[in-house]
């Protein structure tokens, strides 16, 4: 019996770019190279959280520009790519909180103002469903799963991004998956 990764995950991983290791960009040209290297994966990651391409691009742009403006402070950072994922993840959380506050002020019963939906099976609906599931997990476990599935980061990079050890991140991931299975099983029974 042969064991492989799930097809969908494997397809994503094959397209994974080379890790953007090395020093923090210290010149506009280095910054431009960095943007070129990470823009697609960061925008995809932010899109999965925010479910709006416009918001995702604004968020990533803001993070990247801040990354350059703070280049002196971050000169010693070596894992640039994981660090950027962490910055984007944090910024996405801020944006989602702002949205929730705005939503509560506007009309608590109105649906969120997200990207146009194409149909009941649209990618945005799917992301909404994914987020609903992940929101039921402890935040640290959900974070590990998001960085692995949305960001396609290897566990070593996720550990670096989150600032914990490799065994810890694997453990969070496994517990998260286990809990996710429980939720899915529970919902299937209803």
């Amino acid at each position, binding site marked *: *019996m*042969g*064991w492989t*990764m*799930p097809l*969908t*995950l494997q397809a*994503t*991983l094959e*397209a*994974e770019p080379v890790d953007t290791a090395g020093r923090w960009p210290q*010149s*506009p*040209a280095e*910054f*431009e*190279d960095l*943007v*070129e290297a990470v*823009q*697609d994966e*960061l*925008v*995809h990651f932010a*899109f*999965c959280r925010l479910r709006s*391409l416009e918001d*995702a*691009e604004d968020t*990533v*742009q803001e993070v*990247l*520009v801040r990354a*350059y*403006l703070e280049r002196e402070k971050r000169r010693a950072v070596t894992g640039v790519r994981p660090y950027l994922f962490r910055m984007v993840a944090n910024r996405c959380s801020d944006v989602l909180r702002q949205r929730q506050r705005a939503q509560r002020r506007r009309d608590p019963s109105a649906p969120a103002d997200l990207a146009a939906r194409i149909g009941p*099976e649209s*990618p945005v609906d*799917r*992301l909404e469903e*994914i987020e609903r*599931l*992940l929101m039921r997990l402890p935040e640290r476990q959900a974070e590990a*799963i998001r960085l*692995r*599935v*949305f960001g*396609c*980061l*290897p*566990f*070593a990079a996720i550990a670096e991004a989150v600032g914990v050890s490799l065994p810890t991140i*694997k*453990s969070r*991931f*496994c517990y998260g*998956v*286990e809990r*996710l*299975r429980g939720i*899915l099983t529970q919902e299937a029974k209803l």
Partner: protein
Amino acid sequence: MTCRSARRQMADLFDSAGVTDAGAELRAHLGLCGACATEFRGARDALASVEPLQRVRASLDFKERTMNKLAEQLSAVQTARPRVRTTPFRRLAFMVGAVVALVLALPYLGTLRTNHGAVTLLAQSVQAMSGIQSVHILARMRTHRGDNFEFIGAEYDFQPVEMWKEFGAMPRWRVENPGRVVVMDGTQSTLFLRKSKEAVRGGRNAGFVEWLGPLLDPEQVLTAELKAAQKGESRASLRREGGRITLTASRKAQGDFVNDWGRNSSVPESDHTRVYQFDAATNRLTGMQVILHDGGKDVVVFEIDDIRYNEPLAPELFTVALPDDVIRDVPPEVMPVNRPIPATARDAAVTFLEGMAHRDWDQVLMVYRATAIPEGLKMYGGGLRVISIGEPFQSGLYDGWYVPYEILLADGTRKKLNLAVRNDNPAHRWVQDGGF
């Protein structure tokens, strides 16, 4: 492997870091143990339920918008930065004398022809500069994205430009913008165009950075401004405001213009004012602006955001890593001869444009100084249709010729431009030099 350790290591099967020995052992265990295999399938299915349906990509202009945003932010940061600097008391006391000398000279500063104040400033500035080990300049320039360091245009957005120079027995420097980088490593210069992967090598003063070059030697800038004022090429004035001294020099466009082509396309070829700022306490250059005067409009086309003196510079700054598939410059004397050599500026334009039209890259290489045609150029111009090619003319300061042409690109875009060609090389070979 036990079931317990298999479950503990199951995360490795969802990692993308490659299969480890432990991973191989785990897979073997899953092949033998039904319970663990069921566990794995369950985890895999759960993960599939949080897998997005599609991958999105950044918009095509995302990078450009981000670079523009960065330029805006750098400008805002600079504006917000306090300009007042603290100075040790004794040094301040010493410098007050120099400032007083300048203030006394101010009434005589209509022009700098016999201007003792300017001479004093120059002498003090040169003295101030002589102690410099390095300079790092952060600037921005209105130019077409990815273009050279010469081309400016009031209608373009600012693009960042950054310059470093290390002084010493063998000075080294680096200048770069988002599209290209020039490195002078002490003995030779290398120009590298990132997008097309083209590299050109030259001597210490190969002219790759055009008018920006002198900015890397701030004391030379002042000398040049003084000489220009003394020769009547510019009108200059000095003023002092608080701790800052400002030298303003206005110049008329240089060059002969048979028409407006080339006018206002570079700083020397435009009516402009250069505004230099010096710290009154140290006499060091602290900022510069170039203001273009185009008809009734005054537009800042170049601005130094920050000058950092004696910042430690990493040795890697003065090297440039070229990719394996770099396209190198070919000197005109060894360019291939696989077609008749163009005899005139117009012939050169015809050779280039018709080569592009027929995707005959060997023909293009008759006038294109490179080991190969960049893929981007092939994509852009391959299969074009030539509508017309006009008569060559000269304009501005450019030593070559401009050949008017009109083409229809393969994607249906119509272009009417002037191809720049020149033959002022030792082989007198006509080469394409821009304008496409």
